[in-house]
Every structure is written in C-alpha cells, then in structure tokens.
C-alpha cells in the first residue's frame, strides 16, 4: 500500500491543498468554502431583489401606472419579498454561521459536512425555480398570469394563479429543505463539537443566536411546507382545504402561514442580534452587559414568537378572546426586545468607544430598530391596527424592523469579519461613507411611508391617489439612493478581496473582550509552531 489515508470524512481528501477549479466548490465540504458560497449567493440575491425594489419605487414615483401592468407590479412585490427573505437574509446569516461557528467554538468543521454541501446547493436550484416563476407567463403563454399574491401567498388568489405559482411553491419547498438541513447541521455542531473549555454559557452570543434560530426553523418549517403543499393540492388535485366553495377555509391558510411567518421574522432578526453581541463589546471595549439576560431574552423571544402569529390577522374577525390574547402576547414581546436593546446600551455605557464601520452600524441598529419596536407596539394594539392594517404604515414598520434589525446586522458582520475572511483590511473611509449613505437614504425611503400609511395609502398597490404624491416622490428618491449605495458596498468587498492592507490575526483591538470565541486566536496563515505545549493530556 503506497498511500493510506486514515481519516474520518470530516475533511475531504485532497492531496495538496484544496482541489482546483470548479470541483473545489461543487464538491466542497469545507465550512469556509460553503460559507463563502452562501455569502456570494446572498450578495447576488441582494442585487436581484434590489433591482425589483428599484422597479417598485420607480413605478410608485408618480401616481398612475407608468411602467408595466398591475399584475407585473404585484409579481415584483411578491418576489422582492421572497428573494430578500429567503434568498438574501437567510443565506447571508447561514453563510456567517458556516464560517464563524466552527471557528468560534473550536470545531474542525461543521458536524455534517456533506449535508452542508447539499443545503447550500439547494439554494441556486430554488433561485432558478423562483426566476422561472417570474418568467412563466412569458415562457408558457396561456397558462395564466404572474404570481401576484404577495409573499403571503393567500388563497383564493394563489389557487387561481397561473403555473408560475407552482414554480413558486417548489422554490419554497427547496428553500425550506435547505434551511432545515442547515439548521440540523448547526444545532448538531453547536451541541456536539464545542472545544472542552467552551461551555454553553461561554459561547459567543452569535452562536446562541443561531442556536435559537435553528430551533425556530426546525419548529416552524414543516408548517410552511404543509401549507404550500395544501395549496398545491387545492390547485391540482381537487382538494378544497382553502376553498370555501368546497367547504374549506381560506382563513386557515393565514393561520398556517403566520404560524410560520411570525417566527420567521425572528429567524431573520436573531443572527443579527448575535452579531451585535460581538460588535458592541468589541468597540466599546467592555464585556457584554447581561450576557445571561441576553441569552434568556433570546430564548423567551423565540418561545413568545411562536404564539403570537395572529396579530397579522386582526381584521379577519377572530373571537374577542382570541384577539385579546394575541394582542397581549404581542405587546409582551416588546419586553425581551427592550431588554436586549437595553443590554447593548449598558454595554456601551462608559465604554471607551471607537466608531469603526461595524460599530456605526451597531449603533444605528439600536436606534432605528427601537423605532420599529415602537411602531410594532402600535400595530399590536387591535383598535389601532384596524386603521393601520394593510397600509404603508405596516410597510414602514417592517422595513425598519428588517433593514436595521436584519440587514444592517449582516453589514456589521461583513465589515467586522471581512479582515478575518480575506486577510485584508477594508478601506475604513469607504466603509464609513457606505454607512452614512445607506443609513440616511434608508431613512429618506421609509420614514415618509409612516405618514402616507397613516394618511391611508394602502400597501401592495400599483397606483395611488394624488394626495400621497409628495411622500412617494421622497420615498422613491431615497430608494434610488439606497439602491445606489450598494454599488459602493460591492466595490468595497471586491477591493478587500483583491488586496489591501494586511489584516492582523486580531484586527480589532477589543475583539477578545466580552464573549469572545476562539476565532481570533487563529492566525492566518498559520506559522509552524515548534514544540511549545503538549496537547491536552489527561
């Protein structure tokens, strides 16, 4: 026997370094490679979903229907949301999990490397399905119009939709399988592969955040899968789960969707809260205030998040008892949310702060996400929500929740870890310009929507009455600026990958303060150690 390798397939076998060319990526079982692929996929989808947003804002720039037919507009609204939620935020967060969790907890790789490969490669397949669902009316003429239900896919409209809806349903199935497999992998890794000194209560907040996220996904994804499968049955197999004419109930779908949908918003939020839990102590140079409270807070949030779904459906006419229950439950959610924000503020209190790009995003998140909490409580109050429901006010609320709460957290993570990922420092000056540009243009875009909403402008409409014109002009200008800022983001990323100042192992002075993981102890590239210490010897 000339060469005998005796390794567990925790690593793929390669003779000298990684396999070259496309095989390295297609067959990859390396957590860093897969993490990188997730992140690039998310970046691509950011621009894809962003392009749809630009179309929406262009259409709404002026009253009247200018650019396309209303069905196409509604299709863009639908797919913008699906792409951003399932194609951008979740993969980006999963990419960060893949990259960082093994490094943070001292594991050689993810627990199930081949499963990891599968959960990534389902994503491009799902993206192709989604693109087909948009193109279906043109590729297969006569099979019905575009998917125009909004991301909530409510019947009866979703049952009447054309063949594009079937592609959407398949896409959602694949996305769901992908996130379940990723969740199983992440949970197994966190539970089983921590280094001996890394106890649960020492884990970096990001790891905890992903632990709860993964559990939430495991809990609710089958419900979404069931719901869209029932849609499929209603469409093609003569059932009438959601068809009143056949004895079914369209409201039932809303319950199923939001039973998944509300926990889903915490799936989007929690990883970014985890990033905050690293960024804030690093740049405040103070340990995280109330680490345990934050962990328990996230746990409470996850549990409460599963039992308040019907606050999206106050207007459907639930019983008084149910309405009250969902109202009180929803308002209670502001307690763990407030607790988490307070902990971050106390972490900064009297810290010796510096304001690098990740920290700027961190502070902006605290300020603007609080705002979403306030509008959230307004929406939670039933009599008020009767007015606000399905207006632009809701659009403003959830964009304040999701852009600072999820997307900016991801940006903070990108800037925080770019030096670790690429070995190069990004251009701090450009990072700061990007921060101010996005933050200001984000507010120009979405702040006016509170007012157009309160004044009564409905959401998901292609045309509006002229009294809302000014608000929409401002919103659209802000939107274009926001979109444009991402070209700078792309430029910074490419520039950092291609070169730049060499990053030290520990690019941030304060990165070991707080709840540090083991990631910053890893040199890059690793020097050869001579005999320094014996391995852990019992």
């Amino acid at each position, binding site marked *: *026997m*000339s*060469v*005998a390798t*005796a*390794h*567990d397939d*925790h*690593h793929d076998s*390669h003779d*000298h*370094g*990684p396999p070259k060319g496309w095989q390295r990526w297609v067959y990859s079982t390396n957590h*860093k*490679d897969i993490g990188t692929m997730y992140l690039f996929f998310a970046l691509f989808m950011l621009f894809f979903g962003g392009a749809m947003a630009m179309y929406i804002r262009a259409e709404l720039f002026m009253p009247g229907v200018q650019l396309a037919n209303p069905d196409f507009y509604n299709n863009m609204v639908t797919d913008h949301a699906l792409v951003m939620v399932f194609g951008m935020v979740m993969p980006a967060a999963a990419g960060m999990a893949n990259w960082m969790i093994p490094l943070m907890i*001292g*594991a*050689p*790789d993810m*627990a*199930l490397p081949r*499963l990891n490969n599968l959960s990534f490669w389902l994503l491009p397949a799902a993206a192709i399905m989604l693109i087909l669902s948009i193109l279906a009316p043109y590729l297969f003429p006569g099979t019905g119009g575009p998917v125009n239900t909004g991301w909530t896919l409510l019947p009866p409209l979703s049952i009447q939709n054309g063949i594009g809806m079937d592609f959407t349903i398949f896409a959602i199935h694949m996305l769901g399988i992908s996130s*379940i*497999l990723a969740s*199983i*992998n992440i949970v*197994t890794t966190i*539970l*089983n*592969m*921590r*280094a*001996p000194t890394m106890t649960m209560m020492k884990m970096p907040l990001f790891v905890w955040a992903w632990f709860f996220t993964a559990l939430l996904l*495991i*809990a609710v*994804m*089958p*419900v979404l*899968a*069931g*719901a869209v*499968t*029932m849609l499929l*049955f209603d469409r093609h197999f003569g059932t009438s789960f959601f068809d009143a004419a056949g004895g079914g109930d369209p409201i039932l779908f809303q319950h*199923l969707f939001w039973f998944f949908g509300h926990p889903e918003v915490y799936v989007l939020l929690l990883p970014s809260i985890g990033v905050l839990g690293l960024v804030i102590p690093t740049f405040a140079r103070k340990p995280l205030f109330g680490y345990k409270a934050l962990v328990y807070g996230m746990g409470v949030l996850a549990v409460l998040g599963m039992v308040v779904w019907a606050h999206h459906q106050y207007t459907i006419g639930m019983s008084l008892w149910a309405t009250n229950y969902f109202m009180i439950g929803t308002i209670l959610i502001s307690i763990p949310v407030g607790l988490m924000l307070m902990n971050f503020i106390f972490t900064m209190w009297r810290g010796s702060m510096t304001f690098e790009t990740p920290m700027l995003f961190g502070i902006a998140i605290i300020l603007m996400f609080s705002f979403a909490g306030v509008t959230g409580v307004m929406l939670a109050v039933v009599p008020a929500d009767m007015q606000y429901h399905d207006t632009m006010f809701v659009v403003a609320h959830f964009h304040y929740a999701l852009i600072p709460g999820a997307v900016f957290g991801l940006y903070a993570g990108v800037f925080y870890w770019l030096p670790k990922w690429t*070995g190069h420092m990004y251009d701090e000056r450009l990072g700061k310009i990007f921060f101010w540009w996005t933050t200001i243009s984000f507010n120009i875009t979405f702040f006016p929507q509170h007012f157009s909403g309160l004044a009564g402008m409905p959401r998901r409409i292609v045309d509006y009455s002229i009294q809302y014109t000014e608000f929409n002009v401002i919103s659209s200008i802000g939107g274009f600026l926001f979109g444009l800022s991402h070209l700078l983001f792309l430029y910074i990323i490419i520039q950092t990958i291609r070169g730049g100042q060499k990053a030290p192992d520990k690019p941030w002075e304060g990165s070991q303060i707080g709840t540090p993981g083991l990631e910053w*102890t*890893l040199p890059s*590239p*690793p020097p*050869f*150690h001579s*005999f*320094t*210490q*014996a*391995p*852990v*010897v*019992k």
Partner: protein
Amino acid sequence: MTMTDSTSSHACRTFEVRPNRSLSPTGMLIFFLVVTVLSLVVALRFLLLGVWLVLPFTLLELLVLGVSLYLFERHSRYSETLRICPDDILFIARRGVKILQECRFQTHWVSIVLQLDQQSWYPSRLLLQSHGKSIEIGACLTDEDRKAFAATIQATLEECRRMS
C-alpha cells in the same frame, strides 16, 4: 478532540486521538426527544384541525434529524492509537472496537510531515511517512491541536531515537 497520553511501558508512549464530543449520546437522545415532542404537539394540533399535511413533513424532518444525529454519533466512536517505541511505531484506527486500519513503521525511518495550506483555508494534514508509505493521522483534530500534536510526537520520536 481528545488526546490521552499514557506511558505503556517505560520506553514507549501511547497517544490516543478521538474526535471531541461535547454532548453525550444520552444528551443527544434527550435533545432529540424534546424536539420530537414539541414538533409533534404542533403537527398533531394541526392534524386535529384537519390540516393533516403538516404531519408528514414533521415526520420527515424528525427522520432526517434522527438519522443525522445517529450518523454523527457513529462517527464519534472513531479513535486512533499511536504507540511510539524505540524500535517501532504502531498506528491503529478504530471505529468502536472494529479496527479500520493498522500500520507499523520503523522508528528510525519515519518522518512526521505537517502539510499546511498556504491560505490556511483548508485544514492542515499530519502525515507519517516512511519508505514511500504515508498515512494521515489526527484528521479529526482542530488545526492548533494538530500542530501541538505534531510537535509532541516529533519530540517523543527524537527521544526514542536517542534512547535506542
């Protein structure tokens, strides 16, 4: 990873390398049962409402979770034993009690090679080489542990050579 180092006879040193597992099989079982109960409560509640299509997906998911945990548990029964003596080196890889691979080298001829990937992108590889024969050891370790392990067995090797 876990490494145990015991001096089996006065001249030999034995190292045992196992992948590190922070949760016991019992812990894993409890975790699986908790997730199962919670998921089934949700699925059965929907079943009672006539939404029977949630249950198959829940069962499928639990199946994948269970199989994943099982396969992972099976993997963690892997272990490598390396005995370095003045005359020879014995390497045995096992899964449970089953021997997967057994190799013997002469202490004087063996060399220890730590292959590093230039970008530190892929994990390093630790090889025992002699007479065109090469085996990888310690693949289940983290990079730092592997480096430390390499240094330790290198030192042990030199000591043994001096002794003979």
